[in-house]
């Protein structure tokens, strides 16, 4: 018994260590993004890796900003200003309190003075650099409408595939699955051409309509619906339910887990969509967040601090949303009204 308990503990410990390790790997990019969003440009581009934002402390000597170093000199520590670098790794330092005296010391052995410094200003700067308020509203609108439509239409299609008998049902389903093999990139141009012919370019329709159905969602829903007994459909039919009556009164309430799962997946997909919105919209008033973020990437260089600040506030609604649905997400509707 005792050994079993120990085995249990050891396996649990191993699992937890692996999970913690995995979560660190997953979390690190986010932490790095937040850290970078609070750094100044000099600190971002420096070759030192710092998680906590710091800035080089400087002081004004003869009208020039010069970096301060923690210098070990005559067995004492002193903050001195780097005046200039000399040959063979040596540098000249002066005491700011006594600028006439200078010492020459090896540069690599001295420590730059870098106190913590958070550039909160990156956030308002990023927000104001582009109409992000508008971008947020656009993204929320596009993501919500396309997710709702996608859940509705995909589940209806899956309902037909799972519960109805019609000619060529399996062939049609396999054909649909086959379309999943096509890479999205291959569809970009034909889809663009279709939208152009419909005169939908640079409209909300271009952002929403192509995502109102998804083969993956149809497949996912169908597989779930197939686990529900057909007798439920029969019972509801005898009880007097129409097809849509069964869908709304029985099928949807019993299928909350797939609705939530797919809802989250497609909402994330829509929120993070970049290429498609980029190519089908030009107007600023239609721009979505991800396209807005790309504004900080320019030929003249990338404004990392602002980009990361904007990236951070662009994921905040998702993170908050996830905390709300997470509980429902893991709850699964027990199917115990039926004989197991």
């Amino acid at each position, binding site marked *: 018994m005792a050994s079993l308990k120990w085995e249990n503990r050891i396996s649990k410990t191993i699992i937890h260590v692996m999970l913690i390790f995995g979560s660190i790997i997953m979390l690190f990019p986010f932490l790095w993004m937040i850290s970078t969003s609070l750094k100044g440009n000099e600190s971002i581009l420096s070759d030192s890796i710092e998680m906590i934002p710091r800035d080089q402390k400087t002081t004004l000597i003869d009208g020039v900003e010069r970096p301060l170093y923690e210098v070990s000199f005559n067995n004492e520590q002193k903050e001195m200003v780097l005046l200039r670098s000399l040959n063979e790794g040596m540098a000249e330092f002066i005491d700011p309190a006594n600028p006439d005296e200078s010492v020459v010391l090896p540069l690599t052995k001295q420590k730059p003075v870098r106190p913590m410094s958070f550039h909160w200003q990156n956030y308002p700067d990023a927000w104001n650099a582009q109409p992000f308020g508008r971008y947020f509203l656009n993204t929320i609108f596009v993501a919500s409408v396309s997710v709702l439509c996608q859940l509705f239409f995909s589940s209806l299609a899956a309902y037909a595939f799972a519960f109805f008998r019609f000619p060529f049902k399996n062939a049609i389903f396999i054909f649909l699955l086959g379309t999943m093999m096509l890479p999205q990139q291959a569809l970009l141009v034909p889809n663009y051409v279709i939208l152009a012919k419909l005169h939908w370019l640079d409209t909300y329709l271009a952002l929403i309509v192509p995502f109102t159905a998804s083969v993956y969602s149809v497949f996912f829903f169908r597989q779930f619906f197939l686990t529900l007994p057909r007798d439920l459909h029969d019972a509801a*039919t005898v*009880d*007097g339910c129409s097809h849509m009556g069964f869908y709304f009164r029985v099928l949807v309430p019993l299928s909350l887990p797939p609705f939530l799962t797919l809802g989250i997946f497609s909402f994330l997909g829509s929120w993070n969509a970049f290429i498609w919105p980029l190519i089908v919209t030009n107007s600023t008033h239609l721009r979505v967040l991800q396209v807005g973020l790309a504004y900080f990437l320019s030929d003249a260089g990338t404004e990392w601090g602002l980009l990361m600040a904007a990236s951070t506030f662009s994921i905040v609604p998702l993170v908050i949303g996830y905390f709300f649905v997470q509980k429902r997400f893991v709850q699964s509707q027990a199917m115990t009204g*039926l004989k197991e």
Partner: protein
Amino acid sequence: MAHVVFKNVFKYFDNNMVVNNFNFEVKDKEFVVIVGPSGCGKSTTLRMVAGLESISDGEIRIGDRVINDVSPKDRDIAMVFQNYALYPHMDVYKNMAFGLKLRNVPADEIARRVQRAAEILGIEELLQRKPKQLSGGQRQRVAVGRAIVREPAVFLFDEPLSNLDAKLRVQMRAEIKKLHERLRTTMMYVTHDQVEAMTMGDRIVILKDGVLQQAGAPLDVYRYPENIFVAGFIGSPSMNLLPVTVSENMVLCGSSRISVQGVIERIFDLSTTSGYRLGIRPEDFVISKSGNADPDTAEIRGIVELIETTGSETLIHFNSNGIYLVAKLGSDLEIPSDNNISLNFPLKKIHMFDDSTEKSVRRKL
């Protein structure tokens, strides 16, 4: 009047004929059990009445109305399913009220009907529970309750007791029978269990491969099976069926000779001497007593190969010159140590079937 009439009903799935020219009338207030092995078309027949399967050809009438093209909800039927099919997200009350709500029955009327059904079934305490909080028997009661509240003209039961354990099945069997007596509504009940069919039905209908084999009162079917299939299907253990040739005063079965004293010719209208099957129910055997010379009984000898004891009865599997038979005898039984056994059976209780048509041979008496 809620009689159900099947007239030349056919059902095809793709090109497979599942129900083949089914003609039958379920009388008003009658309890009819449709029984048969799996795949015989019994559930399909019931589902055609419910409207869950289309009717490929022929017509079905409920009362005086042809219901071929009537939608299920307008057929005035209620159905109980094998796996209960309760809606898992609704409590018992809502499950029972669902069908009425869809028909816009006023709330107080729904409450009254649900309460009454719950009283009949003894599930008043369970009304606020979800199906997952109920046992199998309770779920089945709720499923029956859901049918009762509808007050339909015809109840349809599709193997409703198959998922219950043996004890509960016996109990629910009696309850459904009592329910029929109380409600006096037409009921159609599908099962593969011939004991259920025998004990519950006013009449039973036996199907095989979509073809009606025989319909009648349970005891009539048991006593006078019309063909070899029914003879083998009804009764447990199955009837012993021996290929025989009839000669004067003797029945020859392989190398066995059974003296029949001309009784067979007196009972059955035999046209030839060979090509018959002789049927003897296991329960018609009795142990031979010495000095038995009753002209109306025959004797058969064999070697016991297996004994199965259930407590109340003993099943003897014995071999009579290469032919295997089963006898159902009482519990206080002594088998001789050499395993040789001699059994008697009354000639009046034997059955004769024509081997080529598989139909029973016409009785003279």
